[in-house]
């Protein structure tokens, strides 16, 4: 099908602000009818912000949105819906407790004499589902169906309202291969009907299989719009991860070569849900293991499974030669394994508590509620960490929520380091932090390793990983693909490894 001359939806110069920051800055985006367009970028790139701007959930600070040439201004998701833009979210926004027919037609139910005409509603629902080639019992409760089917019902609802633009937000994350195929069939059906489809996903294979066009965002900025059949995988990944122009000091690494002694922690066959499967990892003292991979490759899942944050389905972990599989954050800490979450605000800092309380929290929890650390000692301890990590402002009684992102991360680090851990897993510790603080934290990691700690450093920024780590574990689609010494890697070669699809073996041959 030839691309239409004019885009159905066009966004030019769009900026969305959160407080004083620009979540997206001067972004251009366009959707053509009868095309599947993918939006790509790492965490924090601005994808969900852009979608919210298109669907009316967030207002545009600057920029123009045009639908079929006509300028539009949405003040609520309802406005966008009425204009023909429907969204199917990852967390299905439907009602599991009522029937499929209602989920499709509630809001425009057929009536007879003031009452709902159930027979006609079920018949109409059947029609809509048939348009997509689906045979689902309209009277059945939505909640009795799998997530995949619920998603298809969500799409059915969208098309029952004359949709022009359909946004699919990470629709395949919880689907198996058969279900993905079914979804793709339905999407292709919609393409033929002239619907413009925005497909957001981090699965490169699926993007290449389904989409005609790709737009890449990075750090809230527009990087480029490409036709998938003309875009090399490696170029796509490079566009997504990019090279940031940060002022670098000389890289600090604890050791130059990997000292192969006995590993302090060994993990074998770690599997947790669909996020990470059959992973083997060794952690050594005085060593920094970088973890690189795209979104969805299982980086966080691996760290969380090892440190007892999330439940493991299988896998054995030995610590200091003894069987010591952590099954909760508590037990992990008692084994000397600590984890710093990438969601600083929701899983890290307790914002209304003071810096002092935040730093001493884990240590206190370890001692139990009734053996309080003496007040003077608490202050001394916290003050020493504030000093060592240069936390600003050095006011112990400030609520931790008022600190900047970088300082919050340092407070978290202080909390974990106060436990004198042996293994420290850091998940995206420098995300959303200004350059200066980034470098400080990277240097800290080096110091910690020099002091004997085993550090796992997860980051989406490949240069950062190479700067900090002695070894790098490359993850792809939930598996540990290889663990290499960082001396043997360059940013380009690492990027190729991270991007490469499963089929090829040679890491340096670009995909076609």
């Amino acid at each position, binding site marked *: 099908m030839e691309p239409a001359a004019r885009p159905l939806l066009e966004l030019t110069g769009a900026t969305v602000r*959160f407080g004083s920051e620009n979540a997206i800055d001067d972004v251009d985006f366009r959707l053509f009818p009868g095309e599947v367009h993918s939006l790509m970028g790492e965490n924090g790139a601005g994808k969900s912000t852009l979608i919210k701007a298109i669907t009316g959930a967030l207002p545009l600070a600057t920029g123009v949105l045009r639908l079929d040439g006509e300028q539009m201004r949405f003040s609520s998701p309802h406005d966008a819906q009425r204009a023909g833009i429907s969204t199917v979210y990852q967390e299905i926004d439907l009602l599991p407790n009522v029937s499929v027919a209602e989920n499709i037609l509630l809001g425009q139910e057929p009536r007879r004499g003031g009452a709902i005409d159930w027979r006609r509603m079920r018949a109409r629902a059947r029609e809509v589902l048939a348009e997509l080639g689906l045979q689902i019992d309209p009277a059945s409760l939505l909640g009795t169906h799998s997530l995949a089917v619920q998603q298809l019902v969500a799409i059915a609802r969208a098309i029952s309202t004359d949709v022009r633009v359909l946004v699919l937000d990470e629709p395949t994350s919880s689907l198996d291969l058969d279900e993905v195929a079914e979804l793709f069939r339905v999407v292709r059906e919609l393409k033929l009907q002239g619907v413009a489809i925005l497909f957001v996903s981090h699965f490169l294979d699926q993007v290449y299989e389904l989409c005609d066009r790709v737009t890449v965002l990075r750090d809230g900025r527009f990087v480029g719009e490409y036709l998938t059949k003309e875009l090399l995988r490696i170029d796509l990944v490079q566009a997504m991860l990019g090279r940031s122009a940060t002022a670098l000091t000389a890289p600090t690494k604890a050791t130059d070569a990997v000292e192969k002694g006995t590993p302090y922690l060994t993990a074998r066959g770690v599997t947790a849900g669909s996020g990470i499967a059959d992973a083997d990892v060794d952690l050594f003292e005085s060593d920094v293991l970088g973890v690189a991979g795209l979104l969805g490759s299982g980086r966080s899942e691996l760290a969380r499974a090892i440190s007892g944050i999330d439940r493991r389905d299988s896998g054995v972990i030995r610590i200091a030669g003894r069987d010591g599989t952590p099954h909760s954050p*508590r037990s992990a800490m008692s084994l000397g394994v600590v984890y710093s979450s990438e969601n600083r605000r929701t899983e890290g800092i*307790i914002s209304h508590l003071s810096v002092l309380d935040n730093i001493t929290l884990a240590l206190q929890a370890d001692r139990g509620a*009734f053996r*309080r650390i003496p007040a003077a000692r608490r202050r001394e301890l916290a003050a020493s960490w504030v000093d060592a990590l240069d936390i600003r402002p050095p006011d112990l009684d400030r609520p931790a929520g008022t600190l900047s992102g970088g300082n919050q991360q340092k407070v978290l680090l202080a909390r974990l380091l106060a436990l004198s851990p042996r293994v420290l897993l850091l998940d995206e510790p420098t995300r959303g932090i200004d350059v200066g603080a980034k470098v400080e934290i990277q240097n800290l990691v080096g110091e910690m390793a020099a002091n004997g700690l085993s550090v796992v450093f997860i980051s989406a920024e490949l240069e950062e990983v190479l700067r900090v780590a002695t070894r790098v574990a490359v993850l792809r689609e939930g598996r540990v693909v290889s663990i290499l010494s960082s001396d043997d890697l360059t940013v380009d070669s690492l990027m190729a490894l991270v991007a490469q699809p499963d089929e090829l073996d040679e890491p340096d041959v670009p995909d076609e």
Partner: protein
Amino acid sequence: MKKLARHRLFWPIVALLTLIVVNTIVRPSFISITVKDGQLYGVLIDILRTSAPLMLVALGMTIVIATRGIDLSVGAIMAVSGAVALTIIDASGDPESIATVFVAVIAALCVSLVLGAWNGFLVSVVGIQPIIATLVLMLAGRGVALLITDGFITTVNSAPYSFIATGYLLFLPVAFLIWVAATAVVSLIERRTALGVLTEAVGINPEASRLAGVRARGIIFGAYVTSGLLAGIAGVLYSSNIRAADANASGQFIELYAILAVVLGGTSLMGGKFTIAGTVVGVLIIQTLDKTILFLGVPPAQSPVFFAIVVIVVVIMQSPRLHRWIRGAASSRSRRDSDTTITKEVASR
């Protein structure tokens, strides 16, 4: 001065003082205190004495609320506790002996500990929402209390027992001393140990606390046990006062007044940071308001209307919508995850 005004307790204390001042202007005898036979008398003393049951219950409620929970069963636990104590004294051969009273009180407290533990078990182990878990006991507890006293009002004559509620020690009412002691103990335990900070952490951000290794289960369980025990003491106090365990009248609405006291004192119903001093002031405000209403000649049965209005005013003032109106539209935009029209989720408890 400005720093004083921003202190959490500022407005509650101002409210309390205003009430006292207004009452004194209308009726100067309000603040007069007389001494007779080595005992202090006066309206203010009365308030301090009669606020004991509510104070104890509100103390426990504060801790439970701090964990993002609620305890609706405190009135029922009070009723059961009082009924147990009175029944033991009544059934004993010697109601006047101190030993009997002692046993009765200990038994009542043990029973309330068990009931509190039951609540704690339902919430922290089985994972039932606190409203619902404690609602069950609220329903059944009164039935149990009625059963224990065989459905009729047990009138008990026991001097040592009624001493608890009506006696004096060192010029001051025993009831007052009991609640002061309880407040002191709870404050010490919460603030001298790390229990207070950990409780606040759990209430503010349960997930982050879990990752930091805080044992939330034990803390939440302990909160309900504490609430139960304090309600038990309140029940003993209450039943000792009227010397009868009228199971249906005992502690009526007290859970509601307790919640109101906590909210008045400045602790948020959403959990997290809590203030025991605030709750104390909140209880005193309620008791003073109650006395004020009485003196206005309003029949006590009608006083709930006033308290309804107070509750409504307080929750409206705490409502985010009101703050948004005050601060204007600008602030609502700066919140990261704002979806323009969605309202808060229903009943997070």
